[in-house]
Every structure is written in C-alpha cells, then in structure tokens.
C-alpha cells in the first residue's frame, strides 16, 4: 500500500469514527449540562468545596468562579512543583525553579501544556499524577463550562443567568471526561502504552551506553492529554514516545481522542439551542477548515521535491516511521487546530509550508474544531463577526440565533479577536527587539524566525506544542510565554462570559423570511471565508517572513 493511500485511509477511518460518536456524545453532553439532577459523588464534591450547585449565576459571578478556581489551581500547582524536592514519590527529582514552576503552572491551568521541562528528567509521580493530570481534567472542564455558558446566553432570554459554574465544572469532569478517560486508557494500554508507578531504569542500548526509561501512569495521563486537548506529554518526546503512543492504531486513536469532544460539542450546541441545523453549520465550518488543512498538509509533506524526499517517500525528517507521513500529518493538523499541542513528530522538521500550516492552524484561534469548549466559543465569536459583517447585507441589523448583535455584543467580540494577535505579535516583536531572546534560537534566517513566532503563537493560543529548536527554558521565555498563556486563556473567557451575559439578557427576535439563514451552507462558506481573511490578514506579514519564505524557497 502506498503511503499516500495509507494516509487517506487513516483519514477516512478517523472521519468514520468521529461520525459514529458525534450524535451519542453530543447528545450526552447536552443532557449533562441541561439536567437538574446531581449524582451522589457530585454532591460529595459540592459539600467539600462548599458550593451550592443549584444557584443560577449571572456572568460576573460565573467569571469569578472561573478565575478564582483557576487562580487557586495555578497557586497549588506552583507550590507543588516548588515543594517537589521534599515530597515522597518524586523519583528523587528536585524542586522546580520559580520561573519554570510559574510557566508550568500557568501552562497546565490554561489548558496549554507548553513544557519548558523534560518530563522524564524533572517531574516525579506526585507532580505528574497529582498536579498535572488533575489540571488536564479540570482545565478542560473549565473550557467546556465557559462554552456551555455562552450557549446558554443564546438559549435564554430576558435573564442574565448563565447556569452554575461549579455544577458545570464538576459535571464536565465526572460525567464526561472521567468515564471517557477510563475507557480510553484501557484502549491505550491494550495498544501497548504503559501504566505503572515504576521507578527509573537505565537500559543498555544496542549502540552502546545506557538510556533512562521512566515508569509512570502514562496511559491514564495520555488519554486525558488528548481528550481534554491539553497536550502535555509525560515524556519530553510526547506522543512520539513509544510508551505514550506505541503504534499506528494508538496514534489514530489519540487523534480521535483529540477531535472527538470539540466536534461533538457542535451537536451539543445544536441540541441546546433547539436547532440541530445551526450546530451542523458550525460543524461544517470546522470540518471544512480541518479537512482543507489536512489535505494541504499531506500534499506538502508527500510532495516529492528533492532527491532525499524521493527516497523517503516524502518529508520524513522528524517523523516516526511507525506513523509515516499520513499519520504524522493527521496528528500535526489535529493537534494545532485544537488547543492540544501534543506532537508525534517534530513540527520544526516539516516542510516550510507544513510548518506554516501548523502555525496558521493555531493562529486561526484554534476553532476548527478547537480546544474542548474553547473551540466552540471561539468559533461562535467568529460566527458573530461574520454575521455582523454579512448580516447587514440582507438589510437587517445583525442577529445570530435570534439575538441582536448590537454595540455591546460586538464590543466583546472585537476585544476577543484582539487578544491573541496582540499577545503573539507583541511578544514575538519584543523578542527580536531585545538582544538575548534571539540566543535561544537554533536556526537562523526564516526558520529561526519561525521558532520564536511558533512559541508565542502556541502559548497565546493555548496550544502548547513547540516548534523544537528553541531553548525556551530561559527567564524571558518562561515568564513571557507564561503570561501569554494566562492572558490568552482568561482574557478571552472574560469577553465570552460578558457576551453571554449580554445575550442572555436579550429578548429573542423571531425568525422571518428576512432573517439571515445561519444554518445554510452559504453562511458556512461565509464563516470560513471570514475566519481565513481576518486571521490571514493579521498574520500574513509574519508568516511571509517565516514559513512562506522558507516554503517558497524550496
């Protein structure tokens, strides 16, 4: 079987698997966030944290919940890392330095999982399982909660109430992420991923010398790493490591885990708004971008442009032979179009265009299908912008799902789309204005430029993948990327919740023949166009100097 055919077949299998789980999972999540019942374990949790899950919250209260919970999480994770040296079960690793501990705490709470440390050489079982893995669950649940709050903004009228943050958070973990993770971890173990609390082994190598192999609760962390679009690997090699991602099947399964919730959330959205078609329209926009990017990625990576490529069957540098170009391209696109950032190959080694596709994927705001929750709310913000521009062209003031997009709404949406470009461009520019940051680069020229651009793109968009090549464990990168991650995660949430509050307070406008039909393919096309043009225009100059210059030179 040719590698191209293998890649296409893997894509088809993936589409089929996602298609099969779309309805049941989407409907299940809609039920989870609409139900009035509390499960017994949930009641225990509410009792412990002292929260009343039945109280309806207006947007400021909801936001306070999100921010307070996340602040406590950052602090806890920071202290845990700082105290690692004294904690048992740390495999003898020392405490983490303050700037790196801050970076890592910010990174995992912000659902980014940017790692400026080597997992197997820095983090013991306690931090990995008791700190990082916990955040993998809760930061994902926070993302879904905020998305659900925005959806409630559309469905509710003349009330400012968006639901209860604590209930949404706990349910997300207990009823969605945990059960799926248990099943997923078993599948991964069956594929050959490890799951133990073993220590460090020095293993002899065929080529001589020894190599360090750690044991650990890898499969359980791997599954939530993908399912919660977190991306922080147990090992530095991330999903390229055979303990995390042993073979082609586990690879495909991990890609499936990355995409399954973000796509299914469009069904949840359709269910909750009472119009499945609206959900399909959003799904259509996400799928169009995802398939388009995947096709482009495969095309550029399979493209035989030089003798070395001809021999390898494509751009195999930096890719695992057990995944091939197809499995690697699929993974790279899925991980950068969601806020996952797990990698099974080295994005730095992709062709110039291939590296550009991973960057552009993140720069779109990670909305196709995006991170768990964050993908849906990011896409809905773009839907609002698209409605605002094009909705006027049907001769009415813009409205989406029966809610008017007025001054307040557009203000929050405009602020939302400003945040990440501002963070990415300003921090990248500052890195070049200052002298020292540039010393972290491995390469010069366009590729070196891409290393830094990629780092901040990944941080601010909460992706967490690295281009490789950049030594990011410096005070400058630890603190600026840490800030970019926090601001890139929580500022948009502020605007999303404020927007949700404003929408929930509105009275719905009934749909007439004069209303812009946002469930039609025409609108989906328009939405894709708006996304591509708005982000394309923002990053075009920067991309031109990095991946485009490199890709066109090839």
């Amino acid at each position, binding site marked *: 079987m040719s590698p191209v055919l293998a890649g296409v077949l893997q894509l088809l299998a993936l589409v089929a698997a996602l298609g099969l789980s779309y309805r049941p999972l989407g409907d299940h999540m809609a039920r989870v966030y609409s139900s009035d019942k509390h499960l017994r374990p949930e009641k225990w949790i509410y009792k412990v944290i002292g929260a009343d899950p039945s109280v309806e919250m207006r947007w400021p209260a909801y936001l306070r919940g999100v921010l307070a919970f996340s602040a406590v999480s950052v602090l806890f994770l920071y202290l845990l890392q700082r105290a690692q040296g004294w904690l048992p079960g740390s495999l003898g690793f020392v405490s983490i330095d303050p700037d790196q501990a801050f970076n890592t705490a910010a990174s995992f709470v912000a659902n980014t999982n940017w790692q400026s440390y080597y997992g197997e050489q820095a983090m013991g079982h306690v931090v990995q399982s008791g700190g990082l893995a916990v955040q993998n669950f809760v930061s994902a649940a926070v993302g879904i909660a905020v998305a659900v709050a925005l959806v409630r903004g559309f469905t509710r009228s003349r009330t400012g109430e968006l639901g209860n943050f604590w209930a949404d958070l706990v349910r997300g973990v207990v009823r969605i992420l945990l059960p799926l993770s248990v099943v997923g971890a078993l599948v991964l173990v069956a594929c050959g991923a490890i799951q133990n609390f073993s220590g460090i082994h020095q293993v002899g190598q065929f080529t001589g010398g020894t190599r360090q192999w750690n044991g650990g609760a890898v499969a359980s962390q791997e599954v939530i790493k993908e399912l919660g679009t977190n991306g922080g690997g147990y090992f530095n090699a991330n999903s390229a490591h055979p303990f995390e991602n042993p073979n082609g099947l586990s690879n495909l399964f991990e890609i499936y885990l990355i995409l399954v919730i973000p796509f299914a959330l469009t069904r949840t959205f359709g269910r909750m708004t009472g119009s499945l078609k609206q959900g399909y329209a959003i799904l259509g926009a996400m799928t169009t971008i995802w398939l388009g990017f995947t096709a482009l990625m495969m095309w550029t990576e399979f493209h035989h442009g030089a003798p070395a490529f001809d021999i390898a069957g494509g751009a195999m540098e930096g890719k695992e032979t057990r995944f091939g170009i197809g499995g690697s391209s699929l993974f790279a696109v899925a991980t950068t179009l969601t806020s996952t950032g797990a990698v099974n190959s080295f994005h730095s080694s992709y062709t110039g265009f291939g590296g550009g596709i991973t960057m552009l994927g993140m720069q779109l705001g990670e909305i196709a299908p995006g991170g768990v929750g964050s993908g849906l709310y990011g896409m809905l913000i773009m839907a609002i912008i698209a409605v605002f521009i*094009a909705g006027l062209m049907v001769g009415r003031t813009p409205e989406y799902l029966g809610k008017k997009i007025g001054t307040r709404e557009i203000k929050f949406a405009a602020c939302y789309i400003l945040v990440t470009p501002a963070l990415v461009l300003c921090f990248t520019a500052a890195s070049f204005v200052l002298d020292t940051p540039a010393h972290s680069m491995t390469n010069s020229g366009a590729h070196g430029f891409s290393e830094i651009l990629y780092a901040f793109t990944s941080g601010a968009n909460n992706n967490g993948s690295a281009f490789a090549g950049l030594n990011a464990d410096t005070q400058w990168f630890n603190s600026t990327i840490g800030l970019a991650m926090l601001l890139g995660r929580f500022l948009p949430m502020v605007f999303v919740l404020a927007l949700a509050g404003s929408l929930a307070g509105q009275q*719905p406008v009934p749909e007439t*023949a004069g209303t812009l039909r946002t469930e039609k393919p025409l609108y989906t096309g328009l939405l894709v166009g708006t996304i591509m043009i708005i982000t394309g225009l923002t990053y075009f100059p920067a991309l031109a100097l990095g991946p485009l210059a490199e890709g066109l030179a090839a």
Partner: protein
Amino acid sequence: MTTDVKKQQDAMPTTATTTSAPHSDLPTGHKPAAGRVGGGLFDPKQLVASLPDAFRKLDPRFMIKSPVMFVVLVGSVVTTVLAVTDPTDWFGWAITAWLWLTTVFANLAEAVAEGRGKAQADTLRKAKTDTVARRLAGGGEERVPGAELCVGDLVVCEAGDVIPGDGDVVEGVASVDESAITGESAPVIRESGGDRCAVTGGTKVLSDRIVVRITTKPGETFIDRMIGLVEGAARQKTPNEIALNILLASLTIVFLLAVVTLKPFAIYAGADDQTSLIVLTALLVCLIPTTIGALLSAIGIAGMDRLVQRNVLAMSGRAVEAAGDVSTLLLDKTGTITLGNRQAAEFVPVRGTTETELADAAQLSSLADETLEGRSVVVLAKEKYGLRERRQGELAHADWIQFTAQTRMSGVDAGGRKIRKGAAGAVLAWVRERGGEVAGDAQELTDRISGAGGTPLLVAAEDERGARVLGVIHLKDVVKEGMRERFDELRRMGIRTVMITGDNPLTARAIAREAGVDDFLAEATPEDKMALIKREQAGGRLVAMTGDGTNDAPALAQADVGVAMNTGTSAAKEAGNMVDLDSNPTKLIEIVEIGKQLLITRGALTTFSIANDVAKYFAIIPAMFAVAHPSLDKLNIMGLSSPESAILSAVIFNALIIVALVPLALKGVRYRPSSADSMLRRNLGLYGLGGLIAPFIGIKLIDLLLSLVPGIG
C-alpha cells in the same frame, strides 16, 4: 343592516377629510412596479463643489470621530514630515500626496452627502423669515416678534399672515399654504377641534381668520428641527453605526499591531531598508478598512436624505435603522390599502326590474348627492351602462332632494315620479311610509352584499305603480392597484402586514382577503391598536405604523417606527419618529425599503473593504521582502514592475476606490425586495468576491500606468 347604514354615514367625514389632504393620491404610493427605492441623484459636479468643505473637515477634532480615518490623517502627517526631511525622495512625496488625497476623499464623501441636505435647508430657512406675531393679550392685540412667543400664547392669523410658530387652531377655520414645508402648492384646511387643528410656523394663511395657541418654543419648531435634520447638524451615530465603528476600530488595531511589529521582524530578516516608516505607513493605510471608514457617515446621511427626497423626515437615524428591521407593518385600511372612499361597483336589480332601469334611477337619484360615493354612482352608470350624465337643470320642474346626514337619502321628484337612493334603513322606511311593498329579494341582496364586505345602498321609486324598491347599489372599498403584489413582496422579505380598520370583522375579512394582507384588526380602537403593538413587540418583533390623530399618539410613540402624517395633530407628530410631509400612508412600505437599503449598503461596502486587503498584501509584501527573501518574489502574482510602483499602486488604488464608490454610497446599492437568502447570495458575490478580485485588476492597471512614468517602472 343598521350597522351598515351607520357605516356609510360614519364614513362621510373621513372621506371628506382624506380628500382635502393636499395630495393623498400622489403617485408616490401608486407605482408598485417602480416601487423599488431607487437611488438618489448624484451629479459629479457635487464632488467639485464640496471640495472646500472636504478640506475644512481635515480638522483633527472632527476626524477623530472616525477612528479609521484618523489613523490615515496621522499617517499623512508622519509621511509629510518624513518627506520634508528627505526632500529628494520622490517616492516619499508621492506616498504623502496620495495619503492626503485619501483623507480628503473620505471627507469629500461626507461633504457631498451633507451638501445635498444643505440646499434643502436653505430653502427652509427662507420660509423662516422673521415674522411679527399678533398676540392676544388682555382682550386686545399686540404685535411682538415671532421669536418672543411663549408656549401657550394665543396669536391671531388672518389671510396673508405667516403663522409665527407651531401650534393648534383653537378658533376658526382657514386655508393654509404649506408649500414651504411640503413643497405642495395646493392649500389645506386647518380648523379648530378634531384632528386637523395643527398648524406649522412659517406656513401662510390664505383665507379667513384663525386663533392659534402656540405649542412649541421658538427655535424648537418643526421647521427648525427640519433644518437641523436635513443639514445633518443633529445627526448622531446610530446604534449599528457605532457597533460597526467598534469593529472597524478593532480591525484597525489588529493591523496597526501587524504593521508595527513588522519592523523588528524586518530588521531580523535583513529588510530594514525596504521597510522605511513611509512604506510601513503606506501598508497600514492600505490594510485598515479605509473604504468603509471613509464612506460610513456618508452612507448614513444619504439614507436620511433619500427619505427627505420622498418628503419623509426621520427624527433620528435610529428610526431609519429600525425601519430595516421591522417585521410587522400596521397599515390603516382607508387611504393605505383602499382608496379613500367606497365606490359603486355594481347595480343589482330586484326581480321585475331591469339593470338599465335601475341604473337610470340610481343615476337620477344620485345627481343631488355630492359625496364621493354619490359621484361614483353617476360614474358607474356612465361607464357601465353608457348613461350620459344629466345635469340637475335638464329636468323641468324637478324637485331635487339633497343628501344630508340626517335623511341619509338623496333623490329627485319629477313628473309625478319620486326616486330615492340611500342607506338601506332610510329607504325601506321611505317605501313603507308610502305603503309600498318591499320585494322579498331586496333583503336577500342587501345581505349578500354586506356578507361580501360591501355596503348596500337601496334605490326605490314611487310612481303610478306605487312605491317599491328597484334594486341595490353595491358600494365597495376599492383596493389600490398593485397592493397585493407589494404585500407578497413584503412577505418574501419576512414582513407581516396587518390591516387596521374600523369596519366590522366581516367587511374587514373580505377586504383583507382581496388585498392579500396577512392579518387584520377589525373595529379597531386606539386601545386595540396599542395592545396589538405591545403584543407584537413582546414577541420580539419590531412594528411600524402610520397615524395622524391625537388618539394615535400613544401607539405612534410605542411603535418602533411611527410615521405621523403631516396633516395630523401636533401630538401625533410629536409622538412619531418620522413625519411624512405628503401624508401618504402607503409610503411606510418605502420607508422600510429605504431602511433596508441603508443597512445593505453599509454591509456591502464593509465586506468590499475587508476583501480588498488580500490583493494589497500581494502587492506590498513582495515589494518589501523580496530583497531579503528572494523566494517571496513568487508572491508578486500581479507582476508589478518595481517595489516602489507596487506600493504606490496599492496606495493609489486605495484612495481612488473611495471616490469611485461615493456614488454607490450616496445612491445606495440596488435593492430588490427578496428573501434574505437570495439577497445575501447576490451581495456576497458582488461585493465579497468582487472586493477580492477588483483590486488585483485595479492595482495592476495603475502599475501599468505608473511604469510609463520615467524613473518608476
């Protein structure tokens, strides 16, 4: 039966007043085929004439109102300074010149839009000459300047006097020339009491004497407000305009970030020389949405102006915007859906009488009926039965019975034959009084006509054969031509029409069906109307209505778009957010279309503006970076001749497209009522795809021209 009779009489005053309205049958409402809101006028000469104003608007305090254009202004200043410091650099001067032109073109668009209103304001000012008021004080009369009048003062106006201020007639009746405001020369009647008591300052009394109670302070009169409105002085940004400005401002910030951060990137890439501050400024101006930023306020002013051209004054831009969003139209039956009066449609004889016989009797008996309904009987007899109209003098010894509201009959006694025509009850009584028999089918016929929503009038005669009913005249409301098509169009646009009428449900249903409205409100009282509006609004629908009476005022105020008729009371005019100077209720439909056209124009140009940027990148990025990264020259897909020419071409295109689109901004995009789907498809293709492709062609053409200039290509 009795209700029908009563109805005919009730209708009398209404018909009378409607016809005396200056031109309620003005063609504006009667051309469904041409009912599309066409563009306003645009004359290229206006561009030249408005140039001085455009330069005056360069004031930064004024420019800051449009964040996008303010950035261009700052950019122009920056490049000017740079050009002055390096005077030998022709490129710097060229960019500077075109950036200034961009700014001026933007101001020009607004100046042209305002200029059209100014001409109208000047005409109005002439009407506002200083008047001397004859104020009633302590039993006597004193002469005071019109500007010193207070609310509540009583002033006397006689033939030839200019009314000194807005007010209500409290005594007398007069014919008034309101041409200063409405442009219509036919005089109108103003009288105390009722719904026709309002007079406007600046209009002229032509006959008789009236006493007016002043209701507005000088300086705040209707004419003052009109001047303010057409000049745009009172113009405030509408909610959607503010929202759009926010989005444009945020896009401007995004592009500002992209351009500012480009400098360190360029230095790293080794393209420091190619990214001078002048080049970066040019790039910024090309990227920020200058096209829509420049034309946004002109679009708004032009929208108001299109209303003014149709003799409608919108008191706020917000109302025009709301008009585009309206989903329920409340239309008064009389004058809007039907012609102002009922007309004879048919003569139905009872058994034993022929149609011609009945027509002849009906005609004779109606000659003494001067009401419009009476005239229509004569007209029908002539048109359908070829009966020549006879004059009253033609019949010798004839005794004419005039129609009065008391007798409810008209007729003639001539040569021993008496003929009567009138309300069914009155005629039946007349026949019975004379011992006549009422044919059995007479009752049947009247019932049938009432059931079909018509009004039956009976014709009876007394001669040698005794008194008897001859037949029935079928009076019916005549639905204006083309209304059904318009309502169909409105339905396609998603707008529901509700007919409001004082008629009983039976009649109302018949007319509603004939006219093709979606719903009707029969036997409507002002309270019913108000309740209907509130009900619609509670469902999230925006409601538009017209009204003229004082009892319409609360509903006018409640409606999202309330169009008061200029003939209406001052309370109604105060309550509505638009005034129709022609007092033509059909215009409501056009107002909705103008509102939609305004929003479409705004959206189309925004889309066009943003789509334009793609081509500009393809011109400027290779120009800046092809030296540092030769591979980027492949992005120069337009094959522009040199980096300087590429950047200059993009800037020139950016400036010229503003001027090129001024006519579109002022006239509004072509608008045809259709569903949202087809409208979106059309506009997206035209302005989205067009906006993507047009600049590639435009920039290439400009580059070709520039390359002919020695030293550039």
